[in-house]
């Protein structure tokens, strides 16, 4: 990041802190500190510090960093290609913004998302200066709920993706590296999971226990690893015969070490691409589950259940379902742009 960017961000964060100083005062004064508020304050402090300190670090270490970056290693080539892709940069910025928002929500959100005031007076208010996105059936501010919903939806997306990527990489790498029976067995298992009607599994498991964030995340993660497994496996299959692996084996390295330290890092490129796309896809699936009543349960806001709650009011209060929907669209667009950009940058075949 250039110094100018850092300065701008630092100034914006200062403005935010100024604007919300009473909220910050409230948080600091409260006897018990809920974890959300703690994280928000901590993140704000961290960002302020980082944006102030980075240019210092950048300037002093300048020459060696530039030397590093002008190299022709795979990563620097990729980074340069990525930087040229403006859409991808836009996606990256939006993603960073979103996750920053999730950390800072208690400071940014104008209202508490769960407080119901005088319901009759504040219900279904159209978007206005007071409530930029209007209010819902209980008079709760939609903007605040959307911001808090970002936390839930993005966390679900990220953690489910992490589970899926972790599991998929493990299975794919093991299958590809060892081959033979292990490979066939694991691939059969993968095929079975792929052929399994995911929706039925989701409904039954969520019905067995009760719908909760934890359950949704786990189930989505456990049913989304198959694509990664396949990708990793095919990459590992082709890598396995390469000289550096054979050399490592000749040197007597254990299989585990070879897999972890040499093979997997080279499969990262397509996995990263798939992972970013997977986050977007998971957010959409969670929204669909909420529409069926099986996702995150109210009063906890998630974009999916906000659309579901607003679907019956579409004729009288269109804003309740529309804004969370738009939030989903823009978030998934960002992730897709990012994923595409990464794919363009990392895939040598597409480079001219």
């Amino acid at each position, binding site marked *: 990041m250039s110094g100018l960017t850092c300065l701008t961000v630092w100034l914006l964060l200062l403005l935010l802190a100024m604007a919300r100083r009473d909220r910050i005062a409230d948080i600091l004064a409260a006897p018990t500190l809920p974890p959300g508020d703690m994280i928000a304050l901590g993140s704000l402090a961290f960002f302020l510090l980082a944006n102030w300190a980075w240019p210092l670090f950048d300037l002093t270490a300048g020459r060696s960093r530039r030397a590093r970056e002008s190299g022709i290693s795979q990563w620097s080539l990729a980074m340069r290609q990525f930087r040229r892709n403006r859409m991808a940069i836009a996606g990256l910025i939006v993603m960073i913004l979103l996750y920053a928002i999730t950390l800072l929500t208690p400071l940014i959100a104008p209202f508490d998302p769960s407080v119901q005031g005088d319901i009759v007076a504040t219900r279904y208010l159209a978007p206005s200066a007071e409530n930029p996105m209007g209010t819902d059936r209980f008079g709760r501010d939609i903007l605040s709920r959307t911001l808090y919903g970002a936390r839930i939806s993005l966390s679900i997306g990220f953690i489910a993706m992490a589970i899926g990527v972790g599991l998929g990489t493990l299975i794919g790498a093991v299958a590809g590296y060892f081959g033979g029976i292990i490979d066939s067995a694991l691939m*059969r298992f993968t095929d079975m999971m792929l052929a399994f009607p995911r929706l*039925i599994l989701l*409904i039954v498991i969520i019905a067995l226990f009760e719908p909760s964030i934890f359950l949704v995340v786990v189930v989505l993660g456990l049913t989304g690893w198959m694509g990664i497994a396949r990708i990793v496996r095919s990459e590992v299959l082709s890598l396995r015969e390469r000289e550096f692996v054979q050399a490592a084996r000749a040197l007597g390295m254990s299989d585990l070490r070879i897999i972890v330290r040499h093979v997997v890092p080279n499969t990262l490129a397509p996995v990263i691409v798939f992972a970013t796309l997977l986050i977007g896809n998971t957010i959409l699936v969670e929204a669909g589950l909420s529409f*069926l009543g099986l996702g995150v349960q109210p009063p906890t806001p998630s974009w999916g259940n906000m*659309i579901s709650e607003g679907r019956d009011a579409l004729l009288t209060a269109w804003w309740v379902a529309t804004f969370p929907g738009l939030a989903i669209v823009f978030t998934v*667009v960002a992730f897709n742009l990012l994923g595409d950009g990464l794919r363009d940058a990392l895939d040598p075949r597409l480079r001219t």
Partner: protein
Amino acid sequence: MLSFLGRRLLGAIPLVLGILTLIFFIMHLAPGDPTTRYSDPSISPEVIEQMRVNLGLDQPLPIQYFRWMTSFLRGDFGYSFGQMRPIAEILPEVLWNTLQLTLVSLVIIFGLGMLIGIYQAVRQYSAGDNVLTFVALFFYSMPAFWFALMLILIFALRASQGDWVIQFPASQMTSLDYDLMSIGEKIRDRIMHLILPATALGVGSAAGVARYMRGSMLEVIRQDYIRTARAKGLSEGRVVFHHALRNALLPIITLMGLTLPYLFGGSVLVETIFAWPGMGRLIVDAVFQRDYPLVMAASFVITVMVILGNLLADALYAVADPRIRVRQDG
């Protein structure tokens, strides 16, 4: 190649049976059973118990499984516990409803998708390309059910209130007086009822196909033989549509094979919104009502379609790309 296909098909049989067995036991693990919805003070527990006996639910689980498996292997799907009708009657009706919708949406998905992808590739980096990229991405990232609701709101309700030239019906497969219409009117009625749901289902995926198509076309266009064709003086149209497209279609064709499960499985959310009696709703309702035989039968259809779809994709790929064929036979 045939032996390859044959082997795959043979291997698929234990896969299907395994999945169905898993589904069977998972479904029975879920609390409740088909009689739970009769919870009502006026219905005595003896009646509920009798219903269970009538449905064979009082038997121990392995026996129920055995019974189901034997009749299933004989080709008998059994009776739906919810509708108390032979599933062999239910499935074809609902499948046909679903196919009408998904086939039409498939036309949108691939027709529109390919057109957009080709345009984007031929006019890469132009303003049109960028706009289309963003628009396609926009629709690709949209939850289909949200899109469906927006569509109805605009093209059915606002159109009716504003008395637009073209107004679409908000739900159902046909109009009330369908039976009284002439053949031409009937076709038009069906198409009008199909357009909104097919669009809701298709546009998002069309954007996905467009992305694939664009990437594939771009890769092909850069090849030497295309340059040769242009150097030979062939018209741009012939170059693009005759030479480039043929080779760029490869990944798209495999994609077509993979849409088989969607063709037969429908989409529960869009079907609910449009009151379309399709497979998506059928399966989900069956799971919610614990209609075990129907869940099993529907899962069977979906699973078979997934496997066939993969097979089809691989086979089409082999057919289209001679290099693969040679490698496999050799």
